[in-house]
């Protein structure tokens, strides 16, 4: 048993096809599954104000009808493989993912490739529009989503990163299938996509199969307009009496996707706002002030966010917000102990190693690594980069991207503005 090859003894692969499609792989000994993904570098920020929501709507349409398969055939094929599968769209990505037992990997890759080339039929489009409108309605009933939408609007204002991934009922009702086809033509070229696979597979077979599946795909273009983000602090209260808890989002600019200081930012977020054992945990959760108070770094192309989320009861909301802001101010002084740093690093490394045993975690890791640095980081690389973070790195980062006092703050929930500001 102990002689079995370890998942950590992985082999990494990269290969670019003549049509520009970039392939990434991590073979993980000792796994039974393979997780594969087609990742398209397109999302909400690549839309226009008029077509807001088209990326996400298109992702739905992929499952309605491909060039050769109907919805029932697509889902039936995945289900007969016993696949876990899904797709997602966000500000700068659309992906199609499946995890299957290794023997089914070739079939799952074939269907995923079909999904990237949907039929975009008018009747399907009209039918799926109803589902999208329901998804929007559902979204509008969820406090955390409402909060996040308000926050992104306040933070990014006229910048495309402020747009709503689902679109609005108005844009979705106005959108035409021709506009969607035009968007697909523009954004779904092979050179604007990545394919990645992690787990149990044979790389040469995968490269040959995808080469064949995509031989007729156009290269297309892979450009994206990067508009600079200008930051302006604000504090807006969006009172919504339908809800019982008061929620806040507090954000400041942070580093962009390609910045190598990402790991320092992740350590900083862990020290301040990990869900257990962090500064916010002791100041807010342990004292009963807030049910949840967490921080995260979010990176985009040409922009980034250091975001804190807070959920509390309206009666304590002003005090909870004040407590978070004073913790942010204390962090900004750079007074961080070696003990805190070491604990945060130990937590992140442990989750990297444990996540490293999962084919799903790793396939996403390959994509993230390639999008950020155009290279694949091994678990060893990740460990080293996290180990290397020092308190001075954190201070430099805080100097470059202060977490206060200028912030964008959004409140959403039953509390009236006068009780918070």
């Amino acid at each position, binding site marked *: 048993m102990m002689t079995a090859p370890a998942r950590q003894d992985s082999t990494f692969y990269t290969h670019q096809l003549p049509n520009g499609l970039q392939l990434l792989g991590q073979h993980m000994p000792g796994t*039974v599954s393979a997780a594969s993904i087609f990742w398209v570098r397109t999302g909400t920020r690549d839309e226009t104000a008029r077509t807001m929501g088209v990326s996400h709507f298109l992702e739905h349409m992929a499952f309605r009808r491909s060039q050769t398969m109907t919805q029932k055939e697509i889902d039936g094929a995945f289900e007969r*493989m016993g696949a876990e599968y899904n797709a997602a769209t966000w500000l700068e990505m659309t992906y199609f993912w499946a995890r299957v037992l290794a023997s089914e990997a070739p079939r799952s890759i074939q269907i995923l490739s079909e999904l990237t080339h949907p039929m975009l039929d008018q009747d399907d489009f009209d039918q799926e529009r109803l589902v999208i409108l329901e998804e929007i309605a*559902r979204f509008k009933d*969820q406090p955390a989503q409402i909060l996040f939408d308000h926050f992104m609007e306040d933070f990014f204002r006229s910048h495309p990163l402020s747009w709503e991934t689902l679109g609005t009922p108005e844009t979705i009702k106005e959108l035409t299938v021709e506009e969607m086809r035009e968007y697909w033509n523009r954004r779904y070229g092979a050179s604007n996509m990545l394919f990645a696979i992690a787990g149990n597979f044979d790389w040469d077979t995968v490269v040959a199969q995808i080469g064949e599946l995509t031989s007729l795909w156009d290269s297309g273009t892979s450009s994206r307009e990067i508009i600079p983000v200008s930051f302006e602090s604000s504090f807006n209260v969006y009172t919504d009496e339908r809800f019982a808890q008061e929620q806040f989002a507090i954000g400041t600019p942070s580093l962009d996707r390609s910045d190598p200081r990402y790991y320092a930012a992740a350590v900083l977020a862990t020290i301040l706002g990990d869900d257990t054992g962090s500064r916010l945990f002791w100041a807010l959760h342990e004292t009963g002030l807030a049910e949840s108070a967490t921080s995260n770094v979010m990176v985009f192309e040409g922009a980034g966010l250091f975001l804190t989320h807070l959920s509390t009861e309206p009666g304590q909301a002003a005090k909870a917000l004040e407590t978070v802001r004073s913790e942010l101010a204390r962090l900004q002084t750079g007074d961080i102990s070696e003990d805190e740093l070491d604990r945060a690093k130990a937590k992140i490394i442990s989750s990297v*190693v*444990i996540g490293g045993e999962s084919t799903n975690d790793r396939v996403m890791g390959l994509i993230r690594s390639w999008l950020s640095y155009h290279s694949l980081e091994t678990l060893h690389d990740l460990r080293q980069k996290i180990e290397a973070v020092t308190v001075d790195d954190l201070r430099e980062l805080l100097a470059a991207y202060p977490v206060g006092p200028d912030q964008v703050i959004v409140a959403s929930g039953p509390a009236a503005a006068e009780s918070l500001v």
Partner: protein
Amino acid sequence: MGDDTTFLMHRLQSGAQVVGQPMGGVESAALGISIGAGARDENPAEFGVSHFVEQMLFRGTETLDARQLSDRFDSLGINYDSSSGIEMTMLTAIMLGDRAPAALELLGNVVRRAAFPADAVDNVRSLIQQERRQREDHAAHRVLEVVRQEFYRDTPLGHDMLGTPESVDSMSREDLVRYWSKYYTAPNLIFSIAGNFDWEALIGQLEDLTAAWPAGSGPAIFSSPAMHGGVTVLAKDIEQENIAMAFPGVAIGDPRYYAAALVAQALGGGMNSRLFQEVREKRGLAYGVQARLDGLSRSGLFRIYVGTAAERAHESIEVILEELGKLEAEGLHPEELELGKIRLKSSQVMRSESTSGRMMANLRSWWFEGRLKSPREVQRLIDQVSLDDVNALVRDLDIRQNLAIVALGPRSEDELFGGVFAGG
């Protein structure tokens, strides 16, 4: 898969039980401890006490205060969590295998040497009341919870894990300690570990750790409770109507369990399921629609959820009821059964790729059935289910006679259900 499964089992001197499954090729170990204490064990005056106790456990032990405890977990890179449910409370941890002994030591002390510091009680109380508000704000969670409470009304399985605002308000430190002393006893505990660990050393450590733990009694035995149909409408001014339905399922360990799981798959388990096809794909009535089976030790229930356009909620209800009628009248088609089998088997194999997946599967199977099942055995049990088994089960359940429905959203009972049950 399957043949290489090694199960290890041991009953400690204290009466606590241990199950283990070594796995090659991994660095991590996942550890879980279940305590037979959940909402069903509670008296009305102490509703919510299981969850309250669980939340107090990490507030410090006899030797480490909350911060020291948390710092120890963090500096060892031990990722820990806890939860409480209807039947049991659970503590879990995942870490690199060489830290498993340290994790066991820490969690063991959290379970048995919790200090229940008086000044933490009010803070935890506030967090639990906030948790309720949070759930209130999440319509899907709320209807699924309320439909279970309605379905098991006036029985222990209908208790709310979060208690009532009043019971939580009046809970004292003494109430918590009394409940903890009664239920956190050695025979009421199961330890489960999977991944990279040393079994002999672990058992030795556990014998020492639990030697002085009180014997007490094992888990209480409950009979299968009565179930209630009926309609409940909760008004709320939101966009969608959220509808949950519940009808009788079967207990985990029931010979018909996998047949029932296959019914849930066919009804609302995936994008080719009947509800997904009829409600979403054909009619565009909803974004989210699903059915699932929740098994407990002596009972089980099916639950359906749909979040639908308010003005088409009536239609959604009709479509779902029609599908339930079809299910009762016609049972499943052979191809639905086969597809369901593939999906269940595959998800079971894929789940068992991770240390936490196997730890949890073993813990549950030991708790619910008193035995462990290898992936191969589960595959065989799924394969054995025949169309006759499934169809006999569907008839026995008498779905529409035992249906509980809860709706949460802008529509009135009449708008939602007017004429729906007319044909009866």
